[in-house]
C-alpha cells in the first residue's frame, strides 16, 4: 500500500507528513486558482493539512485510491466545498490549529509563475509533476555534493535528457577534464541513479499494486498537454 498508510501509525504519520511537506505547493496554487485570495489560501491550506494529519483521513477511507496525487486533490476539493466555512468559524471562535507544514514564500512563488490557461485541476497536476522532478533532482544533486562531486553534477546534468548516443561526450570531457570513456561512464551512472530516484519517489506516492510506468505515462501526458 501507499507508504503513508502503513499499519504502523507512527511510521504512516511520518510518511504522510513528509509527502505533505513535499507536495504542499501544488495544493496551495490549486486553492488560489479556485479563486481564494492569498490571505485565505494560506490559512485554508494549513487548515486542510491540519485536518488531514489529525484525522487520519488516509487511514480511514479511500482504500481504492491508487495515487496520493489524486487523493490529495479530491480531498482538498471536498474540503473546499464542505469544510472551509466551518474551519473559518472555528478560527474566529478562537480554535487553535497548529501549523503542521511551513508554506514558505507561497504567494511570492505563486506570483512569479507564468499565467496558464489550464483549469485549476490541470494546473495542480502540472505543478505536482514539476514538484516531483524538482524533489528528485535536488536529492540527486545533494548526493553528488555529499560525494564532493558538485562540479561534475553541474557539468553533466544536462545529459539527463535526450538519448544516450546524442550526448556531446567530447565537449563534456573537455569541460570536466576527463577522458571521453570516463565521461560516458559518469553520464551513464548519473542517468541510472536519476531514474532510480525518480521511480522510488513515484512509488512512495502510490499503492504498490500499481505500475510506476503507468504513473510516468500519466505525468508525461499532464506535462505534454499544457
Amino acid at each position: 500500500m501507499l507508504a503513508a498508510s502503513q499499519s504502523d501509525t507512527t511510521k504512516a504519520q511520518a510518511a504522510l507528513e513528509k509527502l505533505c511537506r513535499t507536495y504542499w505547493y501544488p495544493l496551495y496554487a490549486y486553492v488560489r486558482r479556485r479563486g481564494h485570495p492569498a490571505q485565505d489560501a494560506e490559512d485554508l491550506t494549513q487548515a486542510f493539512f491540519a485536518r488531514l494529519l489529525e484525522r487520519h483521513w488516509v487511514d480511514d477511507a479511500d482504500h481504492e485510491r491508487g495515487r496520493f496525487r489524486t487523493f490529495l486533490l479530491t480531498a482538498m476539493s471536498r474540503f473546499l466545498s464542505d469544510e472551509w466555512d466551518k474551519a473559518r468559524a472555528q478560527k474566529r471562535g478562537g480554535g487553535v490549529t497548529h501549523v503542521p507544514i511551513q508554506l514558505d514564500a507561497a504567494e511570492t512563488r505563486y506570483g512569479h509563475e507564468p499565467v496558464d490557461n489550464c483549469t485549476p485541476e490541470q494546473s495542480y497536476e502540472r505543478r505536482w509533476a514539476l514538484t516531483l522532478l524538482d524533489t528528485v533532482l535536488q536529492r540527486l544533486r545533494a548526493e553528488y555534493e555529499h560525494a564532493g562531486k558538485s562540479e561534475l553534477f553541474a557539468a553533466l546534468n544536462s545529459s539527463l535528457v535526450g538519448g544516450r548516443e546524442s550526448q556531446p561526450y567530447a565537449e563534456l570531457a573537455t569541460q570536466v577534464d576527463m577522458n571521453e570513456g570516463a565521461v560516458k561512464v559518469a553520464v551513464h551512472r548519473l542517468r541510472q541513479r536519476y531514474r532510480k530516484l525518480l521511480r522510488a519517489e513515484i512509488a512512495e506516492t502510490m499503492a504498490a499494486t500499481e505500475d510506476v510506468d503507468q504513473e510516468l505515462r500519466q505525468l508525461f501526458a499532464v506535462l505534454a498537454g499544457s
Partner: protein
Amino acid sequence: MDTERHCPSCQKPLAPNAPLGLCPECLIQAGFPTGIETDTGSARQPAFIPPTAGEIAKLFPQLDILELVGKGGMGAVYRRGKNSSTGSSR
C-alpha cells in the same frame, strides 16, 4: 528579441520554471526502464511506449482489437478482427 529557450532533445519551448532548466517532459521520459537508455540510433526521439492492445480496445470499442503487431518511433500497429482479414488499425 527572442529569448525563448528550447529543449535540445525534443525541441519544445522551455518554461522559465523548468527544473534545473531541463525539459520536464524529457525528464519524465528518462524514468522509463525501456526509455532513452535503450535506444540505438534515433537519439533525438524520446522512446515511444505503445499502449497495450487492451488499452486500445477500450478506446475503439467498435473495432475488435486483437493484438499489438509492432511499434515504430512514433506509432504502433494493432491487428483487428472485424470485416477484414488483413485489416490493421493504427
